[in-house]
């Protein structure tokens, strides 16, 4: 590893770029999603991908796991999925001496990258089984606590269309996702590329770029990035502006928002901004970094009121309006 900060930042940027490029060999387009997912991994957070089926969400996560040489597991969430199916359970095993004892059988949560596919199809009980794992990065079964692997990254997907038989994620669980990324339908050119790549004799594959050590180093470096006071103040005021009735609340906030973003939202914005600053080879967070990550970090943390729901207001639009009206330098 290099010694100077400039070299470290350059190394970070190179790793990040290379990882992105490797994933892009399989995944066509979705650069923002790839960058968002990587930011989540490096920030030590989790990502919620929302998009209709067939857009390559699972493929993206699998490719990422392949490129990072990390343990990957996937859980297809269904209504009959039990918490033990996620975190594991104690089972009676017999040793070579014929003694029987309980032994913890680890669930799929014990991996570096966990793909929780269609997470909203599981019951709240099973969904909440992930809560401790996501926040504490450990699980407790029968009074025994088991640390999860590091890094631990949950990437959940959900389908916004099929709402029948689903259990929308509670606000507490949504708040635990660093970013909520919306997977859009690919453009025509991207569709051409997808069709070409996936219908040939040989499908493209992902080669491992770097492993766990590099991920942890990058995560550590990311947290060293400083934030100037006035930039941090902007992030704080941004969170404050999402709360109706607060001094900095915009008119649209008071009209359509029931609850604003939590302090976790501010953390998410700043961590995402730090990652972006490093990716762009800078040593400090800028206003643009905050603005770029604001939507992904806040869109699932803002709860609309009845008026907002009835009028079909999108949280992305609200965040855009707030960003437009929020002064960069505090008056």
């Amino acid at each position, binding site marked *: 590893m290099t010694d100077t900060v*400039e070299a470290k930042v350059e190394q970070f940027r190179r790793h990040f770029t290379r990882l992105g490029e490797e994933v892009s060999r399989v995944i066509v387009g979705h650069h923002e999603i790839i960058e968002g997912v990587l930011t989540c991994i490096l920030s030590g957070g989790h990502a919620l991908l929302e998009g209709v089926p067939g857009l390559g969400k699972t493929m993206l996560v699998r490719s990422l796991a392949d490129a990072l040489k990390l343990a990957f597991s996937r859980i297809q969430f269904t209504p009959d999925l039990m918490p033990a199916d996620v975190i594991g359970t104690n089972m009676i095993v017999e040793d070579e001496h014929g003694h029987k004892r309980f032994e913890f059988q680890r669930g799929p949560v014990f991996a570096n990258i966990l793909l929780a596919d269609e997470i909203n199809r599981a019951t709240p009980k099973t969904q909440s089984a992930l809560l401790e794992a996501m926040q504490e990065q450990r699980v407790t079964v029968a009074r025994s606590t088991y640390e999860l692997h590091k890094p631990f990254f949950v990437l959940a997907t959900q389908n916004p269309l099929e709402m029948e038989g689903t259990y929308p994620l509670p606000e507490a669980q949504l708040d635990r996702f660093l970013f909520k990324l919306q997977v859009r339908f690919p453009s025509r050119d991207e569709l051409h590329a997808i069709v070409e790549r996936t219908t040939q004799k040989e499908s493209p594959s992902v080669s491992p770029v770097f492993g766990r050590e590099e991920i942890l180093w990058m995560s550590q470096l990311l947290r*060293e990035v*400083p934030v100037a*006071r006035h930039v941090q103040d902007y992030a704080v005021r941004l969170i404050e502006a999402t709360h109706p009735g607060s001094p900095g609340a915009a008119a649209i906030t008071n009209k359509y928002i029931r609850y604003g973003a939590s302090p976790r939202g501010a953390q998410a914005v700043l961590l995402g901004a730090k990652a972006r600053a490093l990716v762009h080879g800078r*040593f*400090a967070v800028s*206003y643009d*970094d905050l603005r770029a990550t604001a939507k992904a970090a806040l869109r699932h943390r803002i709860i609309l009121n009845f008026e907002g729901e009835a009028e079909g207001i999108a949280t992305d639009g609200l965040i855009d309006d707030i960003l437009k009206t929020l002064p960069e*330098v505090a008056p």
Partner: protein
Amino acid sequence: MPEDVGRVIGRARRRIRLQRAIEGATLGLLAAALTSLIMVLLFKLRVVDEAALVAFGVAAAGAVVLGALVGALLKVPVIAAARALDARADLADRLGSAWDFGHSAERTPFMEAAIRDASRAANGLRVGTFLRLRAPSHLRAALLLLCALGLLTVLRIPIDDDTLAAVAPRPPPPPPPLVPPFQAALAQKKVEESQKEAKRLEDRKTQKILQKLEQLWKDIASRKFDKRALWRRIAALQRPDGAKLTEDEKAELGRLKKTGEAMKTAAIGRRLGDALGRQDLEEAQRALRDLARRLQDKRLSKKERSELERALKRATDKTRKELSSMRRKLEQLKKQLAKRKLEKLAKNKKQRELERLSKELEKLQSMLSTKLSQELMDALRKMKKYEDADAGRSLEKAAERMKQLMKRLRQLRLAARTRDHIREMKELLRRGNQGQRDDQLRDFTLRAGNGQGEDITLLLPGQGKEGEGQGDQGDDGRSLKRPGTCGKCGGGHPTKEHGQAGKQGQQGGPSDGQGPGIGTGSNLKLGQATDLKDAKYRDVQLRGKKGRGESTSEIFMGAATKGFSRVGYKNVYLRYKEAVEEALEKNKGIPHGYKRIVEKYFEMIQPR
């Protein structure tokens, strides 16, 4: 913090200050140009003078400088300047962050790296390139106003003194006249005439009152009055006392008529007799003096002298008889009085009876003291003795007594007229005041009603073809109505046909048919002359018995036979009023109360 970053941020702050100074100056210029435009316009309209304009110009220049100063001295935060430069130069907040990290107590390697990065970015950064001075936002408006100001300064406004007077603030309107001007002028004229009369009669007391009255009218006409002071002055006016003719004067005047009848029997005394019959004392006095001079100068023929003697005898005989009769009555009264004093009547009743008798006695005694008749009797007595010169002197004395009586009568009339003047002034002022109160009440009612109040509708009389038509409109109790008149025959009620025209104007009223007809003829338009070709006339002759008194008739041609009258109401009113006043003055037998009714009527119909 590296010098590069600090220097660049400092330059950015100065640049921002300069920009703000320009903005402030432009804003000041805008305000100055706008107000200067108004000032120059006022100067052109000669509302303000040149000195004020120059002073204002200096103040306007000061406003521009003040705006620039305020803009330059406003605080520019370092972060704001750094952010402005970062945003313009696309430095991703390198300068701002570096400035912040530079002031941090504990610098991390990352911070040091960020500062170095910012220093590299700041090195050679041309602030002027990125923070260009922009045209102020109000510059266009300010320039437009300056152009307008220049145009206004160059242009010459053709304005004359009349226009200036119209533009100049007007003094508050004078208070409305308390009395209509023509009425005030009329009353003033009357006072002036009375004053001349007072001068002729040498009645100084009345003259003084009339002078004050005339001054009051002048003040009212010139509207230089304070209402309270005016009323105080009127109240302080000393009314001439209501003196009347004494009993002996009355008796003398009564006897003069009888004397006149007696004198008429002789040709020489006819002039005197006629004058006394007309109660024209002036003429009678002249005729008597003429007789006296002729008698003194012995210019009377024998026949004339004997006729005069006979006439005087007849006249004095009547007086003598009357006097002897009065003396007898006086004696009787004295006896009655003495008798009543002895009778035992109730105290109060006795007192009243005694008082009545005493008054009657006193009256008779005064009636007996008749100087004029005594002089005539003396003249007769001297004529009998052929002392014509003395007889002539007695007649002169009688004429002088007659003159005194005449003067006394005129003074009394003048006093009565003066009292009338004061009464008229009070009445006119009271009505003027009432009119103002009515106006105020009407304004108040309209304001209070706010357009929802009920207006009093004055319904015009209906006009029909025949005089027998009956209006079918009921009275709703709100409208003032006048009886319908036939527009073509000059009287009567509207026909049913034309009465319906009025019905449209009065919906909601009970249609019991008891009220007067309203509406207008369907063929008539406002201002159009009445067509009389189809009018039906009916002459009515009144019969009366001869010998039961004088009857006078007069045909009024005032009602237009074609078209509308073109004589002003005021003129007609004044003409008629003067005629009536003259008639009232001449006819002495009209009771005062009746006169007052006639005066009141003319007061009611006077034009306003």
